[in-house]
């Protein structure tokens, strides 16, 4: 990958954090999904979820592991095919 791409990526991941530090008055970094769940509780306090997940990650660590596994599968697909394209281009150009 070219340097400008790497620089772009770095910037991309830094900017949100700079924005964050300036607004740290915020509460804990909960998921937006959990907040929506709370809102449902406020609107219809009597609502009970009628189905629960068949399998739940037994701990936060395992959940993070499965999320990173998902990201790894995706990166592997992208990296493999981009590598192949690059190799093929290189071979064509001699």
């Amino acid at each position, binding site marked *: *990958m070219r340097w400008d*791409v790497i620089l*772009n*990526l770095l910037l*991309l991941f830094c900017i*949100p954090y700079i*924005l*964050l530090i300036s*607004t740290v008055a*915020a*509460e*804990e*970094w*909960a*998921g*937006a*999904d959990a*907040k*929506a*769940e709370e*809102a*449902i509780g406020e*609107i*219809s306090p009597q*609502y009970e*979820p*009628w*189905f*629960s*997940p*068949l*399998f*739940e*990650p037994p701990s936060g660590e395992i*959940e993070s592991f*499965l*999320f*990173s596994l*998902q*990201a790894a*599968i*995706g*990166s*592997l*697909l*992208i990296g*493999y*095919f*981009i590598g*192949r*394209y*690059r190799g093929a*281009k290189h071979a064509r150009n001699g």
Partner: protein
Amino acid sequence: MHIMEGFLPPLWAGVWYVFALPVVAYGTYRAKKEIEKNPKNKSLLAVSAGFIFVLSALKIPSVTGSCSHPTGTGIAVVMFGPAITAFLSIIVLLYQALLLAHGGLTTLGANTASMGIIGPFIGWLIYRAVSGRLDIKVSTFIAAAVADWVTYVVTSIQLALAFPAGPGMAGIISSATKFLAIFSITQIPLAVVEGILAALLMGYLIQLREDIVMEATA
């Protein structure tokens, strides 16, 4: 953005399944056709799916003090259109519903409708409208950011329809505002990040395989 397991009443869960399944079925058929038409499309399909896998696994903190994740559907919709995007999205949504208890089987239809169909469809419409006039990277940025953001708007509306704050339209709108306040603001910076990532990947793909990318996006 995924509506959690059991958090849609059976009626609405069913409605969204009825909406989503035909599109997924058509997308599966279309994906097969694309591969038959040009076997090289298989690798582009894999890259598009990979992008959805990576981006929807990243829970990124946002300015509002909560975390949310991008959808990653931008690349797929620009290359293959909304139907195939629905097919690729349901694979990721199933992974998350079964292994992560993120989203759920009862809400799979609703989540596919927002992340796989309506969000990408709006992104695709806008992509079609601007793609002739703007650079492909800029068009991809717009399509991906819009697809991401609209996904969360749809989720808010889905929740509002199932949980109106009062009777009639007024109740639905009042609920929708509440859910939009949670999702849509958190999502704006993430939609921008997603758009930039999609544009970068698109630029790189074109640099390497202009031939097949141009054929796919045409």
